[in-house]
């Protein structure tokens, strides 16, 4: 086995990727992690350009330039609230690249046996991840309805299509010359990607995005086997395991299984609950709420997807600053599945300059909820619904929640009384110590900030 410059660079590159993930573990070292990842990728590209198989640079140069021209604005101009969408579209690009490389390799070599097996897997995962990520993008960007769409026999149809695609992929391994089958195989893989996302609702997106991330990595990994390239195997496996473990964390945070997320069609069945008679709730004005907040000693703010929709994070930071200045202990409680992707709330609050040591994880803050004077819930619903603990028949039974109901006073900023994603009523809203603050999150918080600034200084 000959060993040249490019192999050596590939090894260093693999090391850089591993260090990148290692340094990613804590905020203090995380930017070093990104640099390490960039260096690794640069080395991989340079090493590949140095390989003697690569002779024609025009198309490569054009591709790199056009790709950068699309990539830079995609990263720099996207508002932070659009991070989930951007991740989805970027994933679609990566998966498409992987799938097309597989296609090119197939037409070029028509390989047999193991290589073709790896190519089939690469293309299957690549193509289905491409369309699935585009669908996810559509749902996250609300170009498509984010409610799950289900029909009778959906799972049978979906699994059938995946099954046929897999069988065709298998046939191609044995008879790669049968190029008629190939386009059918590709179409079925693309179709499955679309169908896979249709029954998935907005709140399940964190799990699905993570899972698609994993597929994209595994596709690159399969490419590594097909091209006999260990760097691709390592980078793909790192990505594959990362996406997989994140989706497991997300599933655990909802007390649901993978199958339930992927095939459950969660959140479309319980619409009947909305037909109940209106129950009395206590509501409060911005002035009253501001007064309660400034008199509290400890305040916990629980953000949810509604905060992202209303773009309320900056106003919330102002509220946090004002209250902190008055000596109130303000912290944020972050549920693992709040938002549309893992860690979504943290990024938004960090964008608004909330120091990250104020963002507390669920397990750490729940024990202190009983000692909290006021909990302010902004655009979150299911993740604070006590039904998860009290009602074994609830669709969210067993889901870990933030124990907002244990605090002395609960305040909920909400547009109206509509139920949350899971379509179930929230007992929390009807408790005696709960005050409903009706209105747009951003406007409401802004008036509270004004009130505290004017009257309580």
């Amino acid at each position, binding site marked *: 086995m000959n060993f040249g410059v490019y192999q050596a660079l590939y090894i260093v590159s693999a090391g850089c990727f591993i260090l990148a993930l290692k340094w990613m573990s804590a905020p203090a070292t995380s930017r070093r992690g990104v640099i390490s990842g960039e260096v690794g990728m640069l080395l991989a590209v340079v090493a590949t350009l140095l390989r003697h198989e*690569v002779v024609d640079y025009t198309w*490569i140069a054009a591709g790199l330039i056009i790709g950068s021209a699309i990539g830079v604005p995609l990263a720099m101009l996207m508002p932070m609230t659009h991070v989930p969408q951007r991740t989805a579209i970027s994933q679609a690009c990566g998966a498409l690249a992987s799938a097309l490389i597989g296609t090119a390799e197939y037409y070029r070599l028509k390989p047999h046996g193991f290589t073709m097996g790896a190519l089939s897997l690469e293309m299957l995962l690549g193509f289905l991840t491409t369309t699935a990520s585009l669908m996810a993008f559509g749902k996250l960007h609300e170009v498509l309805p984010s409610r799950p769409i289900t029909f009778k026999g959906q799972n049978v149809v979906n699994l059938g299509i995946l099954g046929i695609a897999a069988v065709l992929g298998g046939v191609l391994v044995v008879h790669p010359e049968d190029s008629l089958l190939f386009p059918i195989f590709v179409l079925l893989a693309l179709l499955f990607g679309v169908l896979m996302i249709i029954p998935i609702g907005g709140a399940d997106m964190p799990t699905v995005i993570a899972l698609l991330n994993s597929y994209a990595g595994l596709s690159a990994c399969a490419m590594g086997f097909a091209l006999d390239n260990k760097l691709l195997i390592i980078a793909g496996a790192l990505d594959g395991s990362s996406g997989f473990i994140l989706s497991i964390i997300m599933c655990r945070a909802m007390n649901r299984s993978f199958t339930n997320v992927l095939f459950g069609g969660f959140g479309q069945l319980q619409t009947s609950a909305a037909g109940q008679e209106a129950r009395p709730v206590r509501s409060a004005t911005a002035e009253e709420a501001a007064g309660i907040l400034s008199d509290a000693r400890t305040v916990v703010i629980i953000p949810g997807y509604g905060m992202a929709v209303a773009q309320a994070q900056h106003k919330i930071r102002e509220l946090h600053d004002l209250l902190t200045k008055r000596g109130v202990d303000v912290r944020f409680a972050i549920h693992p599945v709040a938002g549309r992707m893992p860690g979504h709330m943290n990024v938004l609050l960090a964008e608004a300059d909330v120091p990250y040591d104020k963002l507390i994880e669920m397990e750490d803050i729940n024990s202190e909820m009983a000692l909290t004077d006021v909990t302010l819930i902004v655009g979150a619903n299911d993740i604070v619904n006590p039904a998860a603990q009290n009602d074994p028949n609830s669709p969210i039974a067993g889901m870990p929640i933030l124990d907002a109901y244990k605090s002395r006073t609960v305040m909920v900023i909400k547009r109206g009384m509509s139920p949350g994603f899971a379509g179930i009523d929230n007992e929390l809203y009807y408790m005696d110590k709960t005050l409903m603050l009706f209105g747009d999150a951003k406007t409401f918080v802004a008036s509270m900030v004004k009130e505290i600034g004017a009257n309580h200084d």
Partner: protein
Amino acid sequence: MNYEFGFYVFMLAAFLGFELIRKVSPLLHTPLMSLTNAIASISVVGAILIAGEKDASTLSRVLGFVAVVSATTNLVSGYLITDRMLKMFKKREPAKK
């Protein structure tokens, strides 16, 4: 046999990935996903090999070219936005006077 070697590499890398990711604070899960998403654009290596091949067919060239474009889009935007996000994570004393 090279494939066997490949599986060993895969297994070790996957376990390493699990161990590393488990240690990542949930605070950073979004940047982590962006970063691993950017690392998945390693497929640019395969794309370059296809697009730059000697005497490639037109089909190969076109597929390779599109693959280079989309892998680069993934790569560039993935790394840039990860860094942009991480820049925002600041630890600071509350209520600076």
